[in-house]
């Protein structure tokens, strides 16, 4: 049973990392997006493993159901295929890989030195339920919650304004 959990973890992790790498290295942007969706599903699986069911579903609805659909939409409407994309010079690519690798190295080094509390023997499964989260969200985090709503409203208005086609008759910038 325990090994089963570890196996699941390993499968999900390798899936997530594989999909993440494919997102970056796919030549076709649509493939990138689809791999990213796969990565998100793997992460949702991680959430389930961590018994955050509600969050897992919301993650899928928001990321897979909304955000990535928007990406696909944009990509499809722009009709960007691999032929059109020019790639960076080799030197820049090597630089990119080296920079990211250095960051990885440093992050792992930092994490290795992290001093953590001992793991809890038992898990509180109620924290992932919608009841608990709802109570915490609307009591402790009410103000950030309201801010988030204002942020979303602002983003909505901004997006509508930006994406709106300009009326050719009115001569405004």
């Amino acid at each position, binding site marked *: 049973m325990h090994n089963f959990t570890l196996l699941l973890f390993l499968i999900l992790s390798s899936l997530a990392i594989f999909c993440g790498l494919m997102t970056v290295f796919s030549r076709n942007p649509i493939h*990138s997006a689809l791999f990213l969706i796969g990565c998100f599903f793997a992460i949702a699986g991680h959430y389930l493993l961590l018994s955050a069911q509600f969050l897992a579903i919301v993650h899928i609805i928001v990321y897979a159901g909304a955000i990535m659909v928007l990406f696909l939409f944009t990509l499809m409407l722009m009709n960007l295929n691999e032929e059109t994309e020019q790639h960076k010079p080799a030197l820049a690519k090597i630089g990119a890989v080296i920079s990211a690798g250095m960051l990885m190295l440093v992050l792992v080094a930092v994490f290795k030195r992290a001093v953590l*509390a001992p*793991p809890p023997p038992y*898990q509180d499964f109620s924290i992932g339920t919608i009841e608990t989260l709802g109570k915490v969200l609307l009591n*402790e*985090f009410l103000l950030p919650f309201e801010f988030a709503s204002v942020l*979303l409203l602002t983003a909505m208005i901004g997006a509508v304004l930006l994406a709106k086609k300009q009326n050719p008759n009115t001569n405004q910038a």
Partner: protein
Amino acid sequence: MALLSIFQTVPVHYYLVVSAMLFCIGVLGVLYRRNAIIIFMSIELMLNAVNLLLVAFSAYHNDSGGQVFVFFVMAVAAAEVAVGLAILVAIFRNVHAVDIDELKNLKW
């Protein structure tokens, strides 16, 4: 029913490493590609790496604050995508490209 914590099987360091790897893949994507939309996706990937870590530590400390924070990250990500893609579409309409190396008007 009190089940054993997952961290008895999977040490939390594993999660740290996985999330660090995902984050660095996101960074790599940002540096490696020229297509602005892919860069956007890489940023989403980084955000998700952080989310994963937040959820992991939320379970580790038995504190739902971390999960609530993930909601806020999602809200920000959604807002960012909505506005960001709208900007990209507007740029695409004008210059017919989303290649960041061609969008260097920031120079002035």
